[in-house]
């Protein structure tokens, strides 16, 4: 059947070709004024009179020709399930060039169908698409690395020479032991740091997943630090979404983590006057890091900006609150003042070790600020105003006046 089909296609193509040759002469009727601006090769082509006339509808024949038998097979399954239909639409979207993943699992397809709106569907598809791209490029890189390693090994095996090293090689397992020793110490003597896990109801599934990922990262950097915190997960409910996500990341290690997990509130564990709730909405600004206080960080990622959620929590419990002095030390550029949990952890660890704000606030993402404040505030504001004026292109006289005001006379007169 297929062979016959191919044959048919070829015949059609040939017939179309001969047809086009027959009508070749009509080409000369094209007015000469409409020459092409395209490329020199075409111009010279134009002058040749022997080129053939194009048959414009030949493609239709090709498109239809291979299909007589295909259409028979298509007509059989009349009723296709919603999933299959969605799969086909996705395939067509991919062909058109929309951001759609190549492979999609049954579950993802169901999630796609259950999206409440068309834009939600688009977003979900784009998310899957990007995920797929990342995965692919990672895999490619891994393959390349393996190849390179094999190559170097081959090269090295020829000239192998046993090396003598006076030091015992420190493998990661022994490093882990050293780290765990430190964290275990901190669990007895260390300063507590509380993650408040009571925000599940405010978050979507993806936000919870992001939160857990950030906490996993911060736990990691705490473990590797010189003087770790004693981490508490408070208000932690078993079988909550948080719990499930944590199990996904840690698997068996979850039960061996050197942290305190409890379903109790921090107010039950610690004295209230020692607790400080860290939230970007707080009216109070943190001046110094207090080694006797117990800091609380809300485990929440809020992509749809919910202002005042953690401040409300602190207000309800009557706790002291504090915000990082971002404005005081950084020239804020753009972006929200709330930081990710791992950035918070880095900042707090640095503060704990050194008490140096400048060093600690290095962990604020660079895109969010222009630079550090090292001049008095009012001077900086003046220069900022000047820059803004230059940007906006205000009138020159006004600018000059401003300039004269800002800088001493002898400078301008020179």
């Amino acid at each position, binding site marked *: 059947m297929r062979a016959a089909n191919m044959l048919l296609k070829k015949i059609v193509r040939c017939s*179309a070709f001969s047809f*086009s040759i027959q009508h070749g002469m009509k080409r000369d009727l*094209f007015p000469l004024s*409409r020459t*092409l*601006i*395209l*490329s020199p*090769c*075409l111009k010279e*082509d134009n002058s040749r009179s022997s*080129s*053939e*006339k*194009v*048959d*414009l*509808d*030949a*493609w*239709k024949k*090709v*498109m*239809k020709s*291979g*299909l007589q038998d*295909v*259409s028979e097979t*298509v007509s059989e399954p009349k009723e*296709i399930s919603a999933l299959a*239909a969605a799969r*086909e*639409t996705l395939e*067509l*979207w991919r*062909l*058109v*060039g*929309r*951001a759609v993943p190549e492979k999609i699992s049954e579950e993802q397809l169901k999630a796609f169908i259950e999206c409440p709106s*068309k834009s939600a569907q*688009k977003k979900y598809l784009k998310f899957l*698409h*990007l995920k797929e*791209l*990342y995965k*692919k*490029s*990672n895999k490619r*890189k891994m393959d390349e690395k393996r190849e390179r390693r094999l190559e170097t090994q081959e090269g090295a095996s020829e000239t192998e020479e046993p090396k003598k090293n006076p030091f015992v090689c420190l493998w990661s397992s022994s490093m882990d032991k050293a780290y765990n020793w430190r964290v275990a110490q901190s669990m007895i003597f260390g300063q507590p740091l509380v993650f408040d896990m009571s925000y599940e109801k*405010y978050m979507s599934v993806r936000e919870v997943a992001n939160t857990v990922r950030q906490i996993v990262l911060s736990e990691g950097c705490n473990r590797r630090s010189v003087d770790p915190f004693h981490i508490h997960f408070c208000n932690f409910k078993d079988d909550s979404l948080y719990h499930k996500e944590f199990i996904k990341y840690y698997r068996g290690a979850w039960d061996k983590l050197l942290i305190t997990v409890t379903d109790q509130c921090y107010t039950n564990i610690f004295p209230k006057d020692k607790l400080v709730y860290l939230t970007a909405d707080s*009216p109070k600004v943190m001046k110094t890091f207090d080694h006797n206080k117990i800091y609380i960080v809300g485990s929440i990622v809020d992509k749809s900006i919910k*202002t*005042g*959620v953690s*401040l*409300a*929590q602190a*207000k*309800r419990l009557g706790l002291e609150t504090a915000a990082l002095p971002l404005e005081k030390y950084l020239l804020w550029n753009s972006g929200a003042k709330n930081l990710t949990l791992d950035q918070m952890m880095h900042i707090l660890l640095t503060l704990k070790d050194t008490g140096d704000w400048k060093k600690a606030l290095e962990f604020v993402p660079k895109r969010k600020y222009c630079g550090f404040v090292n001049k008095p505030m009012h001077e900086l504001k003046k220069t900022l105003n000047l820059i803004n004026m230059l940007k906006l292109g205000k009138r020159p006289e006004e600018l000059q006046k401003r300039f004269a005001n800002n800088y001493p006379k002898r400078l301008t007169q020179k």
Partner: protein
Amino acid sequence: MALFSQSCQYGLQALLWKSRVFWPASRCRQLFAASFGIPKRDKVSYFSFMTSSSTALPVDPQGTDACPAKKRSEIDYEEEKGWDEDTQEIHEGKLRFSSSGGALKKQLMNHTVSRHKFATVQPPERPLCAEEWSRLRESFQSPELFEEVMFNSMIRYNSPIDVAKSLLTHVAKSNGDIGYNLLVKYLALCVQQGKTSEICDMYDILKIRFKTLESGAYNLLIRGLSNSDQWRMALTLLEEVKRVTVPSRSNYESCIKAAGRHQEMTLACELYHEMLAKDLVPTLDVLQALFDHSRGMKNSALQKELFGILLYLRENQVYPHKTLMRSIKLWFESIPGENWKGHLTNIKDSGQCPVCSHQLEDSELTEEEYNNLRERIIRDVIHGTDTFRKTSPQEFEAFQTFVENRLPFDIVIDGLNISHIMPRKVQCENLFEAVNCLAKDYARLLVLGRKHMLTNSSNWKREVMKEMQNKADFFFAENISEDDAFLLYATLRSGKHCKFVTRDFLRDHKACLSDSVTRHLFRKWQRGHQIVFSSSAGGKHIKFLPACSYDCVVQTTGDTWHIPYKDTFEEKYSYEIPRKWLCLQQKYRTT
């Protein structure tokens, strides 16, 4: 990045514009963008203004395509923002991703830039033969993208379809098949030029080749077919779309317009109702089509339908634009035997129509609506998900008892907001002046503030505060509480006569209300009760604009209709209400 691509296309366009006349590129792209489901703002129409005295207007609704050159830039800009623009053509083989997320994004961006560079290929003017195409393809920077880029620019420059056909022939001959994306792009070109037979052919081909089609192709087919005499096929296509997903409102728009054009008004109305049932918001163009095509018909059922549309505008507080208003006017005037007369007018602050001296509806809510709104404000705005987010239960309770003991107020003032009216002045002086000014007109004042106003400071002098407290009641909330919610509560609790003063548009509070009905109620109430500081007064004295005394919605008394409308030339914000009205009245013959 956007800037770059914009400017580079621009230069080219300008060049082309000079060298020869061709179909406005922006228009083609507009069509293309729309056909792929890229949302587009309300269509702008370019009519000259007609004075109120003119009755019969020589308006052809089809003749709106002439875009002044000035506007073109805006349209172009809008189309750059399609959702799939930035990731439309990601060819993994060509990209070398680096590890971090930011880098990947940058890569994608770079790719888009390069795509735009490709997009400036000029399509040939006449059909080429296979040899010529392959030569062109070879000379192109990246041959694997060639066909796609070429088709894109054909759509942009609206090339004759023969050229596109010759390219398709070339592709078909060299590959033995044509990809779906190229077919859809060709279809877009056909739709753009209204080639009906080609569109039908394309439909056949697509139908045989693919089991189902995706939304982009359906959009194009429906749009293309509804403008031709094959418009009934568009309806069957609409049915087909319905089986897979909810059709977009532009699908319905094309079908309704087609039905209207062929005088199938019942069908058009059916489609319109179906659209409403699916929670789609009809475009004003749909409504206009319905009014335009039922002009001069004597059909009571249809008439009822159209009155229904006007009530829809009323309920959703939609203001028609000028072209739609004109269609409504012409339709009214064309009803045989009813003798309607329409006039354009401006309504004065008193709320009396200067043409028919009819008093417009006032903006008062009914008792039930009022209670409903008050409860919803307490539930959604003040409490929300967590009372502690805006205030605290103790504070709210204290405020409630405070208000109950002093009811009713005539005016409630947002003290902190008003104290910033004139930035040059000390804050408490601003407030003092405002309170003095308002005390002349209103007996019982309530000023809301925060506790920090009580501590003696350079901005808040204790003596001035003391003096003010003699004239008005004051409530000071905690420094971290939100006073706006209290403002709303106190005003609503005092009764219908009570007004409030703030320059805030209260949009964030409106957004807290969960359903659109209550939001509409809130807007209506806000229009009638908010007093705003007038900026035009300037100078030294504070002046306030009175609240709008009449309700700015479509309204009727049976033999009159009053319809507010927007001028298309001036941008209207959502909080601004139109001042221009269409007054329609039925004149009975006295003789």
